């Protein structure tokens, strides 16, 4: 097994105004090349924290994170991030937002025309080729998220890190974008780590689902391998026994064994 991302015995403690907050403990995880892994858990379980650690936006208190056998010390272009709230720069057009990423990664090697072609191709990959000149406030939430994905993909990352990318979208748009993400990932053979709180999304998209226990001091409770054949079709899967079995397994973990403890924590 050639693991591409390795998380070894990671602890994360935040120093807050109220004192130390132990967010993550004893996290061990290996993600293979081309694998689609989702992190699921109740809110506050540290799944976004884990993603930020892999992205290199925060550094662990102890333990090691490796990407392609190199230690993750800072964010890098080999790890593309799609943020929860799209985080497009409102003063740039869709094209410029994506171009900013392209320019940084390929600017030294390629001509201006090539950079523009790359940007255009990335936007077309997410079906946003028609809206390149628009600013983020002129397009819908789903479209913004697509441009966010295009920006991450345009860097040709080895890993795509998605932090609840469809959380703020309505159910229909979300389903549509999930299908597109599946197609894009199949085409680009990306390695994906995605944070979600949506059980159906996790089962539909993942090769493995990493289920996390409740915080504080959350850790990986269980890892579920979803060996449904690809390409997956959500309509057909709705009646599939294996699918419902996986779905039940996640629900069982989240609600029966690790019911939300926010009331206790508060």
């Amino acid at each position, binding site marked *: 097994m050639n693991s591409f991302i390795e998380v070894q015995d990671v602890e994360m403690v935040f120093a807050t105004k109220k004192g130390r907050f132990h967010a993550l403990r004893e996290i061990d995880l290996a993600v293979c090349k081309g694998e689609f892994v989702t992190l699921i858990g109740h809110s506050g379980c540290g799944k976004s924290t884990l993603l930020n650690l892999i992205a290199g936006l925060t550094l662990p208190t102890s333990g090691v994170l490796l990407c392609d056998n190199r230690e993750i010390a800072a964010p890098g272009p080999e790890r593309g991030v799609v*943020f929860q709230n799209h985080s497009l720069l409102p003063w740039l057009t869709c094209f410029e937002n994506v171009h900013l990423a392209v320019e940084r990664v390929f600017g030294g090697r390629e001509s201006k025309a090539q950079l523009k072609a790359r940007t255009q191709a990335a936007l077309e990959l997410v079906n946003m080729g028609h809206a390149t000149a628009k600013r983020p406030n002129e397009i819908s939430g789903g479209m913004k998220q697509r441009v966010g994905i295009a920006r991450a993909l345009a*860097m040709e990352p080895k890993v795509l890190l998605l932090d609840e990318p469809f959380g703020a979208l309505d159910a229909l748009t979300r389903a549509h974008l999930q299908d597109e993400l599946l197609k894009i990932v199949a085409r680009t053979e990306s390695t994906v780590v995605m944070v979600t709180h949506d059980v159906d999304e996790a089962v539909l998209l993942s090769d493995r689902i990493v289920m996390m226990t409740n915080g504080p001091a959350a850790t990986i409770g269980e890892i579920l391998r979803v060996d449904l054949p690809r390409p997956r079709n959500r309509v057909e899967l709705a009646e599939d026994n294996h699918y419902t079995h996986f779905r039940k397994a996640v629900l069982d973990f989240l609600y029966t064994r690790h019911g939300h403890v926010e009331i206790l924590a508060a």
Partner: protein
Amino acid sequence: MVSAVFHSSLDTRSSEFRARTAAAVPKAAALQEAAAPVLADAPGVDWRGLALKIVPPVLGMALLVAIWGVLTRGSTTFPTPGATFAEAVKVFSDPFYRNGPNDQGIGWNILFSLERVAVGFGLAAAVGIPLGFAIGRFEVISNMASPLISLLKPVSPLAWLPIGLLVFKAANPAAIWTIFICSIWPMIINTAVGVQRVPVDYLNVARVLNLSEWKVITRILLPAVLPYMLTGVRLSIGTAWLVIVAAEMLTGGVGIGFWVWDEWNNLNVKHILIAILVIGVVGLALEWALIAIARRFSYDDV
């Protein structure tokens, strides 16, 4: 600032009025068919709304002039509106004459004042905006500067005039210095606040995309801070224009403030009234220009 308040109150009043007429229309339509043309007119030019926007300000002006006229009727010391208007026509018919250093047309006076404001204000922007960036970006600098700013900001700008006179040993640089010192605070503070309020998400984008410091500044910090900066600039130019009149009264030379003081010494009250109006109009124009610029550079963060 005054203009903004003025407009918004007008807008709410006219929209209230429209709401009321809209509510009244269905009732009228039920009673008689003649109400239909009122509805048909609505999509075209909104004459009523337009009239409501224009008539009240004109009425307000007329009222002021009327009160002025009544109070000065038969007065020998305070000029009447008519006499002032006639004098204004005379003053503005030849705004750029020159009869020696202390007797120049109103156009020159305004231009000289504007020049001083522009120089002082430009210097303040050149120093204040980068300083604001530094304060916003680095906590050490912020901790160093904030007690000084809190201490110096409430000082009346004219208190700085003697320092300017002492250091520069000339009236004109001293006036510019006063403008500089009074218009720098809003720019420093607003820029610093703007930098501190750049959303963390945007800075995370910068880190993930691994942008160079230059790109971070030009593509993220500058556009994000620009609306705050322009608010600072707008506040400063208002203060600068307030202060220049007072500073020129003290320093002399050619300028609208000096003109007011000179005409007071000549007991030419008509000219003082004209100057007050001119100062108001120029201040308003500066403010409007900056609001227009700010609107051009603002973005909707949705």
